[in-house]
């Protein structure tokens, strides 16, 4: 603890959101500083780097109007903390964690560092409880479980937000008695999207916390907003045993903000200009999802990513896919066919599905049905390519059957409009389609006759 409070007027350089200050006596990495500009406007900043008495500050807020002469820096001797309380439920904040809903700030029962601490891998519990989203393509084939992080890979113009809204409205844990809440993090959202999401949030029964960074808000806050949200999530989940669903949209804006700041710091750019540490940085967010041994709660995370140029190998979806436990990929082709939600199940994947389905979780025949649908649809899609060359007439009868199956599968199983389907309805639908094409696997037939 430092006893004296110093005001420094030794700013030597301002570049974008970055401030260089000289001749500092004491500073810490990550320390919060107050930057006071002309006419007493004040912002917060954070110390990024210390080099022999000179420091580099990252500023939250607009640097326009500042010059090196009229800025004063005050040190706080603490790193950034988040105020926490269960009163936070139902509130809306901006990227600096200031209330947006016109109500006063709540009384904090506790403060915790926004960066958080990594969960000890041995203290983790394996995610295995099924979450019903009401969407067949997810529940049936890419099942979401509690504590999982499952991103949605979308492309510009695809109805990702409609899909998210539907998940929000229907998401529930089967037979859960615990409290459930949604934390919504908007990063660089346009007003149109914002009002859509807010509408959706107000329609849901569960409580929610919203942290909103709009497209014209400071870029810097885009990097902080998800950290605030996850600190709140950890508090509610692990201290108050709640099931928390964290929805982050759009992570592409987050990564672009990261690139912008990295560039301003003159760091070495990696692929497509994104910094080399983007993997670790994204991991420090995504890995905060999960369950731990000494708590009943859980954090499930659904980040939305818009793939630039529809390219799944772009660094943002690529690094995300390496960290998250699967992905839900939306397809432009299905969207053009009028299928909603346009989930392409072939590249989609839920890594934790195996543990979350089957007897006692969903239904005994879930795994077999999913495999069978998958196999036949993959075959049908493969044959569609052939159809484009030789035409339907040139194909064998059995091959035509698979083509029809693929079409029916897309139109009846994947496509479901706005109605939610329970997991049992989803599985019945699957069985029904397979029966129609006489593709029910033998072991399932046997089970059926037994019943």
């Amino acid at each position, binding site marked *: 603890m430092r006893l004296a409070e110093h005001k420094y007027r030794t700013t030597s350089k301002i570049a974008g959101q970055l401030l260089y200050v000289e001749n*500092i006596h*004491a*500073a*810490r*990495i*990550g*320390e919060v500083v107050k930057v006071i500009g002309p006419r007493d406007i004040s912002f917060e900043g954070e110390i990024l*780097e*210390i*080099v*022999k*008495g000179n420091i580099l500050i990252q500023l939250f807020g607009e640097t326009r109007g500042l010059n090196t002469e009229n800025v004063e820096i005050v040190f706080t001797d603490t*790193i950034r903390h988040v105020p926490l309380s269960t009163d936070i439920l139902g509130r809306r904040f901006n990227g600096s964690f200031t209330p947006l809903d016109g109500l006063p700030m709540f009384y904090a029962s506790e403060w915790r560092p926004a*960066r958080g*601490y*990594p*969960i*000890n*891998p*041995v*203290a*983790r*519990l*394996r*995610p295995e409880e099924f979450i019903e989203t009401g969407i067949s393509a997810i529940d049936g084939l890419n099942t979401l479980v509690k504590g999982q992080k499952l991103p949605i890979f979308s492309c510009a113009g695809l109805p990702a937000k409609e899909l998210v809204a539907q998940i929000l409205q229907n998401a529930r844990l089967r037979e859960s008695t615990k409290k459930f809440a949604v934390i919504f993090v908007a990063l660089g959202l346009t007003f149109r999207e914002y009002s859509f999401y807010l509408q959706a949030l107000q329609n849901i029964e569960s409580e929610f916390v919203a942290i909103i960074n709009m497209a014209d808000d400071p870029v810097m806050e885009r990097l902080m907003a998800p950290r605030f949200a996850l600190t709140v999530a950890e508090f509610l989940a692990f201290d108050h045993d709640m099931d928390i669903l964290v929805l982050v949209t759009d992570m592409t804006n987050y990564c672009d903000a990261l690139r912008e700041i990295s560039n301003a710091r003159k*760091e*070495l*750019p*990696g692929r497509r200009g994104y910094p*080399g*540490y983007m*993997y*670790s940085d994204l*991991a*420090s967010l995504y*890995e905060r999802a999960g369950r*731990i041994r*000494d708590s009943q709660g859980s954090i499930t995370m659904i980040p939305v990513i818009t793939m630039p140029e529809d390219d799944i*190998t*772009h660094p943002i979806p*690529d*690094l995300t*896919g*390496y*960290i998250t*436990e*699967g992905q839900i990929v939306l397809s432009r082709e299905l969207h053009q066919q009028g299928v909603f939600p346009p989930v392409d199940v072939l590249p989609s*994947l839920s890594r*934790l599905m195996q*543990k979350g389905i089957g007897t006692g979780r969903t239904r005994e025949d879930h795994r077999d049905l999913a*495999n069978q649908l998958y196999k036949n649809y*993959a075959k049908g899609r*493969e044959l569609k*390519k*052939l159809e484009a*060359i*030789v035409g339907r007439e040139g*194909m*064998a009868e059995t*091959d035509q059957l698979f083509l029809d199956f693929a079409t029916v599968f897309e139109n009846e199983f994947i496509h479901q409009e706005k109605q939610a389907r329970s997991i049992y309805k989803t599985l019945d639908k699957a069985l029904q389609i397979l029966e129609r094409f006489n593709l029910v696997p033998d072991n399932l037939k046997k089970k059926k006759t037994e019943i």
Partner: protein
Amino acid sequence: MKTDTLGKIISISGATVRTDLTGLTLFERVSVGEQNLTGEVVRLEKDGTVLQVYEDTSGLGMNEPVQGHGLSLATTLGPGLLSVMFDGLQRPLEALVDKTGSFIHPIHLPCPLDLKKRWPFTPLVNKGDTVAGGVKIGYIDEGPFQHPMIIPPDINGRVIDIAQGAINLEEPICRLDTGSKIFGYHSWPMRVPRPYRKKLTPGEPVITGQRIIDFLFPLARGGTSIIPGGFGTGKTILEQTIAKHADVDIVIYAGCGERGNEMSELIEEFLHLVDPRTNCPLMDRTVLVVNTSNMPVAAREASIYTAVTLGEYYRDLGFHVLLLADSISRWAEALREISSSLEEMPGEEGYPTYLASRLSSFVERAGVVETLSGDIGSLSMILSVSPPGGDFTEPVTQALLRTSGAFLMLDTSLANSRHFPAINWMQSYSLYQDILADYFKKNLSNDWEVLRSLCREIMHKEESLQEIMEIVGIEGLQEQDRLVMTVAEKIRSDFLAQNAYTADAFCEPQKTMNIIRGITELYLQGQAPKAGKSENETRRT
């Protein structure tokens, strides 16, 4: 020891810290700041030293103290390592939970081993015997193993006192006339390869239970396989399946920069699965070194050195060890981050120019050796690589290709059609096939080589026919070719594909041979009457 030399922090940038302290040695371990964060000396300068801090530096302030220890960053080796899960700096994670709860806070733990635990010790040497580094002076019983106690490599002398019966690690078990006290454990600098008498040529396989690996792309004991693959191609599942079933004595699993949930799944499974060879839980033959993606980056860099040093230790005790690392790309990225914060000139894709040399000296630590005590021990490696965008031309994959002996390429399109393990049979290779051929012919089956080339021939033919078939359909093919397609399909689905979640996850070598023999027989039968040629002639065409 310079334990009383104190300096202070001048600069901090990420995990790189500059101090005004001089007189330190390169790679010396240091304590940094008021919280005693662990660090290592990475560069010596005229008026100061550059340190690498292995923990989160947020909150670290200028002018905080730095202290040298006069020792290198080391791995502690002894009984009690098995079935424990360590972080990249060899801190037992379970002990960390007791100290800081479910979340990891920067903290210093004195010793990775339980020093108080009592072990039954049986001596093998007597008073007056002359002993040198590597000599076994006795053993203790640890789980399913007899854990030999060895003299640390750099010590020798005459025994003047040796313990017997219950011992713990706090008291010396042996004293030498040179004044050396031998404890049940010792430390070894993690970046220095442990010595051995001589390196031998590999000649035996590591049976992984994966048909495609054991039959088509075998790994030799002491060899290195790499598994590159984009996300979702099943790298982790494949590594974990091999960790479960491989016929080795000890498995070291390094989860380097990967997912936390996967690790919790792995531990849970390993605790409940039983090793058929010893009837003990699989965990009893496993050491886990885990630095998940959200744990400090610099410790991720250290984690594979911790893992390989542990592996070498068990090799020196005369065991066959398999080191699985998932994934080397995350290690390379950590190296890149560190290099960039040291302001070094970047090489290809921002990786430091010493990436290839670091990787090759790491891979060279694998091998079959005659240990200092004259036993045979081996350390084999299976390393997964996560190339960005699934593009194998990137520097990490390329550097590993030059040094490793087997390349198991994971294929996104195979994974998308749910063919697992998604190893591409056309592109993958194993340089160990020739040195292992004799072993397989002698110990498994005479027709090993013949069946192998036949299998590859069928798959090769299938690939060239695939394009034609896409246009003309299977009906348009000649009968001969149709046979190839049917047999190849059978090889794909009944032989190369293997479900990691069923009993099929491990396939005995003998069963592997039977399956492939059965399938290829179909092919030969279908071919023989039509062509009217003898078997051998057919194969030559």
